[in-house]
């Protein structure tokens, strides 16, 4: 009886560790606006009334030229904003782009040597981990499985699981000039 309880507790603890291990490793890059470089903007983020600015830290930029995988310590931060609405539809600027209303979240992907080993090969995104933060910098308790699943569709492509890999490479090339 005690043995069964102990095994059950160990299993539960292991599950908790696996579930918590990923986002727990990623710190809030609170200085991304001043220390990172904006590399892309995205209208209609995931098809909603939202838009996003994507930033990369120096390590991501320095290792981001071409199609090679990024170096350990690379961080990509995506600031997601609600879009200003006009009668329920997104208001558009003179160029037909959505207009930022309020910052809703900062979603972060970070890469470190050895990370990702806890995940199954089907779910793993190389050495990347993900975490979401609210505008006050508080980490979200939501599972990051959907981050892995979406970015995981890029597995096998020379993009290192980053949707803005092309823009990152362009920004890296500009930095070298």
């Amino acid at each position, binding site marked *: 009886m005690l043995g069964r309880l102990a095994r059950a507790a160990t299993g539960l603890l292991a599950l908790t560790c696996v579930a918590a291990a990923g986002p727990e490793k990623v710190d809030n890059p609170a200085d991304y606006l001043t220390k990172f470089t904006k590399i*892309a903007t*995205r*209208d*209609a983020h*995931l*098809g*909603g009334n939202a838009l996003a600015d994507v930033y990369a830290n120096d390590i991501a930029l320095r290792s981001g030229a071409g199609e090679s995988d990024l170096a350990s310590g690379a961080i990509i931060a995506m600031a997601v904003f609600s879009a200003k609405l006009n009668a329920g539809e997104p208001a558009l600027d003179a160029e*037909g*782009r959505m207009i930022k209303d309020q910052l809703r979240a900062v979603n972060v992907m970070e890469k470190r040597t050895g990370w990702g080993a806890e995940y199954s090969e089907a779910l793993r995104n190389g050495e990347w981990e993900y975490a979401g933060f609210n505008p006050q910098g508080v980490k979200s308790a939501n599972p990051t499985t959907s981050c892995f*699943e*979406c970015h*995981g*569709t890029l597995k096998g*492509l020379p*993009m290192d699981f980053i*949707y*803005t*890999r*092309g823009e990152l490479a362009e920004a890296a090339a500009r930095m070298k000039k």
Partner: protein
Amino acid sequence: MKTTACILFAALGLATPAFAADHEVKALNRGPGGAFVFDPPLLRVAPGDRVTFKAVDANHTVGTVRGMIPAGAQPFKSERSKDLTVTFTTPGIYGYECFVHIHSFGMTGMVVVGNDLSNMAAAKSAAAQTPPVERAKLEALLAQAAGG
């Protein structure tokens, strides 16, 4: 059964009803057109036909491109990784996209309902406001749609 029904209607002197057809568009990670594509990318259907957008590969969505549906038609949007069946009743051009893969891959497609291309100008204007990779694909599809 369709033949029998047609004969029966003809015998009764009634106009033969058009039977709605079912079509399928697959959302693929790898397809005939490359990475992250809808197959077929351009589909021509009759008013009243149904199209099922099949989530063959996971983590795709399908939803109308803003401004790229005929006047009076309803936009549609699927959940991620879920099939969606749409009955197309209003003639015209419908552009749709995968919201996950539009920016980097231009994962987009088009349904042309009937022979009405009257929203072509609006569709071109809407395409011009999409990200570059998607814009190029939509413009190619619109040219194909116009070509008949």
